[in-house]
């Protein structure tokens, strides 16, 4: 059925979508590309220099970076724990397992997952107040949805042999999981968690824009006050952080796959 989507129909639909998008958006290209706008953009870019490099401010940026790292780490750990707890009811442990909670739990995971971190942060700030705690919770909630689903798939795809052997001996559900299923899937769960941690460092850097702590909060604050030199240093720290994470994960992956 899927094959019957003709490529011409696809191309026409695509063209219509693109044209309609540009048509309805009332984009202000004239304003953006005018000489005046270009000049103001040049001025804007010029104000970034020189970046603020006073030791006192750099210390604050370093603190913000540490806060960002801490948010992402703690958020990912909480998410791994919550994801594990949700993955258990969301997976069919063995052939013929009734798994009545499987569908509702998967719905819950889908909802957690499809609301982005930033939206969760904006919601959670109302309960947890401004600051990194709200950001940590937001990362944890969204990532719990992602990891819960990945964990559930991993558990369902684990080789059923060892579990079946234990179950035939009359071993209870908990111990079957702890001693047969978990050891088989643990490496996969760890690698999913590390991968999400990498994503979360990047997300935590910008989460603060809505007031949820870390480098983003510093950025939004100083940009709001037009401290362009300070903004430039914060942007530099963000780029360094993201670049370092990228390089580390690239290196680690190369080392592991060699």
């Amino acid at each position, binding site marked *: 059925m899927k094959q019957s989507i003709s490529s011409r129909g696809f191309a026409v639909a695509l063209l219509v979508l693109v044209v309609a998008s*540009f048509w309805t*958006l009332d984009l202000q290209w004239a304003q953006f590309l005018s000489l005046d*706008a270009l000049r103001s953009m040049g001025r804007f870019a010029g104000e970034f220099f020189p970046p603020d490099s006073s030791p006192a401010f750099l210390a604050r940026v370093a603190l913000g970076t540490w806060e960002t790292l801490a948010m992402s780490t703690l958020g990912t750990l909480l998410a791994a724990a919550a994801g594990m707890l949700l993955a258990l009811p969301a997976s069919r442990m063995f052939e013929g397992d009734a798994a009545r909670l499987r569908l509702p739990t998967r719905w819950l995971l889908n909802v957690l997952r499809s609301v982005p971190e930033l939206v969760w942060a904006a919601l959670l700030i109302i309960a947890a107040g401004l600051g990194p705690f709200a950001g940590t919770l937001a990362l944890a909630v969204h990532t719990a949805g992602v990891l819960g689903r990945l964990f559930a798939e991993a558990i369902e795809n684990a080789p059923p042999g060892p579990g079946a052997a234990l179950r035939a001996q009359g071993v209870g559900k908990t111990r079957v999981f702890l001693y047969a299923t978990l050891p088989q899937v643990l490496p996969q769960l760890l690698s999913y968690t590390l991968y999400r941690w990498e994503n979360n460092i990047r997300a935590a850097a910008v989460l603060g824009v809505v007031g949820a702590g870390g480098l983003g909060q510093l950025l939004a604050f100083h940009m709001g006050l037009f401290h362009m030199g300070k903004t430039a240093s914060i942007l530099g720290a963000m780029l360094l952080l993201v670049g370092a994470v990228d390089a580390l994960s690239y290196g680690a992956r190369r080392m592991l796959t060699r």
Partner: protein
Amino acid sequence: MAASADLALTNGRARPAPSRDPAWLGRLAWLAVALVLLWPLAVATEFRPWALFDARSLHVSSQFLRSFWPPAHGPDFLLLVAHEAWRTVAIATAGLTLALLLAVPATLVSTHALSVSALSGRMARGPFWLRQAVRWGLIVLRSVPELVWALVFVRVVGLGPTAGVLAIALTYGGMLGKVYGEILESGDPHATETLLRNGSSRLQAFFFGLLPQNAAELTSYTVYRWECAIRSSVVLGFVGAGGLGQLLDGSMKMFSGGEVLTMLAVFVLLVALADRVSGGLRESLG
């Protein structure tokens, strides 16, 4: 292990299974170490779960939660939400189109497989540095999060979808350019090389050698990125770049939970729909 099992058998009775976890001491020690290591993290993130349950915060959040029901469903509001939802999709689509305008030329310039001088040993110095420069440019474009680009452009062009489109165009241009390059270089270079060696131009070599080989993968990745762009364009609204996000931000600040609930539901549906469409398209590409 095997020796002790033999011993147990020769003694004529099986040893009873240990009633508790034989490795409990080690596990407990590691748990303690982990908790000690977690302490500075908890301090840095001001991790105070009990703050959620003090009287004032509980009052505010329960009031907000109670206002969630019933979801807002006035016809005017639903029309507004539908309009903004379309704008969210439109921002993502327009942004991705511009990203392609950026990524395709950058890919053509930076792909190793289309280098004529690399056919005979090392690439010449000029083209080599040009390729490196384009690559670094792409890396910088995609390392700045789209939200930060949006913040910058909101300053320059004002509130509205233009900032969102530009932010997506730059970040996704960098991402697409990099991944396109990787896809083109991961394939079998034989056909392209033969074309280049026999005197076809680089564009010809691209259209008749590289592209047919990798078209499905390139399209599939682009569709996947479109799905991601829809998700980001909601988020970009929170800094004033138009679409559903901007409306959602406004309703949250006004504490009108009913509107928030409706919009969250619409957003979840939108993402699920994009997921379905992109999944179906990618499957049909094989």
